[in-house]
Each structure stands twice: as structure tokens, then as C-alpha cells.
């Protein structure tokens, strides 16, 4: 494990604690420190991935170790970009731990094998997996925002003005943030699926071979396509959209692990 990777982990862990502290005590300086730590962690993480890229010559997503690490990086990246527009400070308390979880699990998993499957050396794969990872990161954020939405919605519906009611932002903000993530994630997911299908054709000579990975990837795509359609055409928003986002992400995670463990 490189020094940079350890540094990344340390920053993420510290940042997670900082965000939890901010949610508990609502002190602005705590938030600022947590935010800076996340930035530093993200830069270190970027370094890790760049090094891996130059060493191996492809996006480091060949095994679960690399994929998890890259996914964690993408989640933080998407979050930091979204913060520019939404300033949803509480969200860090979920994003930072998720990124921490990703890098910690990645750190226990074995590193990349010395010999690479020649199938993976193609540029197609790099593009295919790269877009999927970033798209998944957007969905991960949408998932976390969806959870926050359900918590806040419950508080308002049940008229319990407690801990969360005060700390969480408006339903409107949470909903539009979830929507933004969906808008950002869906084209990437679509592009990832299309490149995957083309790649399958190139390697196996068939676009679609009905293996479970493909079936679940298809289901994931359909769920998000349905959600996007409902949002755009019927005007779905709020609770139902949040639930559907959460369901979609759970299927997506399942597909993700199926890809690397199956």
C-alpha cells in the first residue's frame, strides 16, 4: 500500500468524523475543517489513481480493489462538484463515510494481479468502465440524498420536529439534488452500457449473451430509465422518486459486485 493511499484513508476517516461532529454540534468551523480534509484526501486519492494509471496504462478498475477505490474517488469528486451548486453541508456526513468504507475495503483486498487479462487492455474497456464508475458515483450520491429526503419527509409528515428536521434542508433542495444526480448519472450509465455491448460484440462476437451480469446491468438501466421517464413525463417527484432512486442503487450495487465477484 502506498504512502499516498494511507494518507487518503487517513484524510477520509478524519473528514468523516469531522462531518459527524458538524451534524451533532452545528459548528461552522468543524464543517470547514472536515471539508478541507475531504479536499486533501481527494487530491491524494487523485494522485493514487494517476500513479496507477501511468503504471498500468489503463484506468485502475480491473479488480474489486481498484474498482472500489476508483468508485470511492468518483463519489467524492461528484460530491465536491455538487457542493458548488447545492451547499448541502449535511450530506458530507454520509458521503465521507461511504468513501472511507470504499477505500478501507479496497485496502484489505488484494492488489492488482501482475498478469492482466489481455481482454482488458482495450481502450473500450477503459472508457466502458470509467464512465460506469463515474455514473455509479452520481447514483450513489442520489441514493444518499434519497435517504436524507425520506428522513426529512418522515419528520414533516409525522410532525416530529426533532434532530433531523432542524439539520436537514428543504425537501425541495433534496429533491432537485437527487434529480441533478440522476440527470448526470443516467447518460453515463447509458454510455457505459452501450460501450459494454459493443465490446461484447468485439470480443465474444455477440452483443448480448444473457449472463447474469448483463441481465442485472440491463435491469439497472431500465429502473433508472423508468425513473427518469416518470420524472420528466409524469412529473414524479418527492417520496416516490426518492424510493425508486434507492431501489435502483441497491440493484446497481448488486450488479457491481456481481461483475467483480461473480
Amino acid at each position, binding site marked *: 500500500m502506498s504512502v499516498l493511499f494511507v494518507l487518503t484513508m487517513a484524510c477520509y476517516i478524519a473528514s468523516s468524523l469531522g462531518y459527524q461532529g458538524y451534524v451533532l454540534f452545528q459548528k461552522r468551523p468543524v464543517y470547514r475543517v472536515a471539508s478541507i480534509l475531504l479536499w486533501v484526501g481527494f487530491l491524494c486519492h487523485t494522485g493514487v489513481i494517476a500513479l496507477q494509471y501511468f503504471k498500468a496504462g489503463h484506468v485502475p478498475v480491473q479488480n474489486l480493489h481498484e474498482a472500489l477505490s476508483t468508485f470511492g474517488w468518483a463519489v467524492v469528486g461528484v460530491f465536491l462538484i455538487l457542493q458548488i451548486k447545492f451547499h448541502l453541508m449535511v450530506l458530507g456526513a454520509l458521503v465521507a463515510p461511504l468513501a472511507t468504507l470504499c477505500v478501507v475495503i479496497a485496502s484489505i483486498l488484494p492488489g492488482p494481479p501482475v498478469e492482466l487479462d489481455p481482454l482488458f487492455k482495450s481502450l473500450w474497456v477503459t472508457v466502458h468502465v470509467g464512465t460506469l464508475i463515474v455514473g455509479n458515483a452520481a447514483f450513489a450520491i442520489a441514493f444518499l440524498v434519497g435517504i436524507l429526503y425520506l428522513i426529512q419527509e418522515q419528520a414533516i409528515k409525522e410532525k416530529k420536529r426533532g434532530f433531523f428536521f432542524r439539520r436537514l434542508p428543504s425537501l*425541495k433542495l433534496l429533491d432537485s439534488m437527487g434529480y441533478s444526480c440522476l440527470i448526470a448519472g443516467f447518460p453515463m450509465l447509458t454510455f457505459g452500457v452501450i460501450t459494454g455491448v459493443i465490446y461484447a460484440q468485439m470480443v465474444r462476437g455477440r452483443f448480448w449473451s444473457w449472463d447474469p451480469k448483463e441481465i442485472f446491468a440491463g435491469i439497472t438501466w431500465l429502473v433508472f430509465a423508468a425513473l427518469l421517464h416518470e420524472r420528466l413525463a409524469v412529473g414524479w417527484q418527492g417520496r416516490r422518486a426518492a424510493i425508486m432512486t434507492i431501489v435502483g442503487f441497491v440493484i446497481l450495487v448488486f450488479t457491481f459486485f456481481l461483475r467483480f465477484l461473480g
Partner: protein
Amino acid sequence: MVEKREIVVIGLNHETAPVEVRERLAFASEDTPKVLETMRQEPCVDEIVLFSTCNRVEFLLATKDVSKAVETIKDFLAEFKKTPRSTFEQALYVHNGDEAVRHIFRVASSLDSMVVGEAQILGQIKESYREACNHKTCGVILNRLMHRSFSVAKRVRTETGIGDHAVSISYAAVELGRKIFGELERKAVLLIGAGEMAELAVEHLVTNHAGPIFVANRTFERGLEIAERFRGTAIRFEEIPDHLKQVDIVISSTGAPDYILRHSDFKGVMRARKNRPLFLIDIAVPRDIDPEINRITNVYVYDIDDLKSAIEENIEERRHEACRGERIADGAVVRFRRWFQSLDVVPTIIALREKIEEIRQAELKKTFASLAWASEEDRAAIDRLTGALVKKILHDPTLFLKQSEHEDKKSLHVDVTRRMFNLDEKD
């Protein structure tokens, strides 16, 4: 004859007068210029500001003759409002001097409000003051007093937690609305029925940029009246279900014994609204909105008890903070008094000069009458001589009064000077 001016507040508020009296005496904003212009003509009124909100009607004056000014105001109210004095005289309070100053500070800081700590009052006071400035009815005293009251209000707000917690139904409604919609800007509001609390809530939503406003009332004319006040649209009762498709916030406050909005009214509504959230506030007792409606996705129903429980815990908190606010106001009263008393030196000096000048003129007249042979030049010389004499004699006392270093001594010196030269004699 320059006399000492005094600060007086005469008026009534929600504690002294019931709403029937308040609404009869309240001045619409278009009446204010007329009131100020009329008052400017009154010799006993030196400076004046008029406050008129839904909870208070007050005149703030600087006057040399308190009792006459109070009578003038009472007569004016009775005449302008075509109301016999007996209907409101009982409710009127009159504060002078420090009490008046404290009262203004407390009003501006929202310590005297029906809902302690509500933020609207300061804006209303500022508006009243601006109006008075436009009509030049504010002089050195009230200018200073109003500016002091703004800074006291600001201090109370920032240094105490008086405005931190929602404590009124309308505040709680706005706070909840914000949690649902984020911004209230351009959120359409439907008011069903009427009533002080409901209208206050609508007013509050409007100040937070909500709108357009729709008003539904059993009697369409009454609905029109209310709608006009909020620059809204009156609709018929039968149109309510249709309007559920386009409004975002509904405030209901009717005297109906049954539900006005039932679960069945919402059939197809959410689909038509594209699932945009709908916030229903039921202020009526018995309730107007079927609580079952709360179970519809993206619809939130709050009745009066829900809102009350939301604010109860905050009220105690505010009461505590209000005590600290009172202390700030008290301190400001003392500081204002110091300034006000220092101001008295100048009129005293002027009064002194005028008195001596009067004597001089009288004596000159007498002297010239017996000096028939004196030439024009001689008369001028005598005039110059006496003038210089008076000037020289008054020089040191004037300096003495102006330079009194201690505030308490200053007012003492002013007092002694006034008595010594009998400046307060009535003519």
C-alpha cells in the same frame, strides 16, 4: 418664549384595545399623509410620527404642551375616524419623557408585540418614520429618537435570541413551508374563509414573496374584500377543488361544522399537479381539512394543534430572551435622556437672550420717549451701547451653561437658570 419640549406617546395597542376598536382607528397607508399634514398645522405639535399596524395605533410627538397635544390628538381621532371619543378613550395610554422613550424602544425591538420577537414591526416603524420624514414632521428630537430605536432594535435582535424560534402560527407555517418548498417565492396560496390568524399567516407568506393569492369565501363579496388587500383573486367556494391543482399552500379558517376539504376532493389532483408538494394548514376549530389527507403522498396537513405544539417550546425560550432585551432598552433610555437633557441648554440660552432683549427693547422705548431732543445718531449710539452691554453680560452665563461638563449638573444649571430668570413664566 421658548419652553421645554417633551416626548409623548399617545395610542392604543392589542393589550388595551380589542380588535373592533383597533380596526376602527387604524390608518391606511394612504391616510397617513393627510394625518401628518393636518398635524403639522397644529401649533401644539412640534414633531410627529404616526404608527399604525394591525396591533397598534400610536402617535409619537414632541410638544411643548403635553395636555393640549393629547387633547388635540383625541379630538382629531374622533373627528377623522368619525367615532365618539368614548369608544376609544378608555383604551388610550399616554407616556411622557423616559416612559415614552422606553415605549418606543420596546415597540421597535418587538418587546411590546403581541408575538414577542416578531420581526415585522421594525420594518413597519421604519416605514412610518420614512413617511414622517417625507412630510417633514420630524425634527431634531424625533429624528434622534427614531434612529436610536432602530439601533436598539438591532442590538436586541442580534444580542438576544428573541427572534430565533418560531412562536406564532404564521411563523411556524412559514418555517414549515420553507422546509417543504425551500423558497416561498412564487408559491401560490389559497385562503379559505377569513379570520385574523389566517390573514396574518397569509400576510406573512406574502412578505416572504409568496403569491399569487387566491381567496375563497362563502360570501363572495367578503372574499373580494380580503383578496383586494393581498392583491389576490377571489374565487367561489365551488372552485376550490379545481384550484387545488395549482396552489401550493392552502390556509383554511372557516366556521364550517364539517370538513371543507375531503379525501375525495384530491382524486386526480396530485397527478394534475405533477406531484408537486401541497402544504395544507388548517387553522379552523372544528377542523376544515380531513386529517386523512395527510396520508396522500407529497401532501402535508397541519392543524392548529400541530402548529401550536411546534411553537410552544419556543415561547418559553423567547420570554427568557425578552428579559435581556428589556435590559438593553433600559440602558438605551438612560443614554437618550442624557442627550435629551443636553439639548435643553440651547433653548434655555435662547429663552434667556430673548427675555433680556425684551427688557432692553422696553427700556429703550421708555428712554427714547423722554429723550425727544436726541438725534437719530444718538439713538443709534444708545441702542449699540445697550446691545453690547447685554451681549457682554450674557457671554459668561452662556458659556457656563454650554460647558457644564457633567450631565446631571447640566440639567441642574439649566433648571437654576430658568428659575433665576423666571423663564418658564406663563403669559
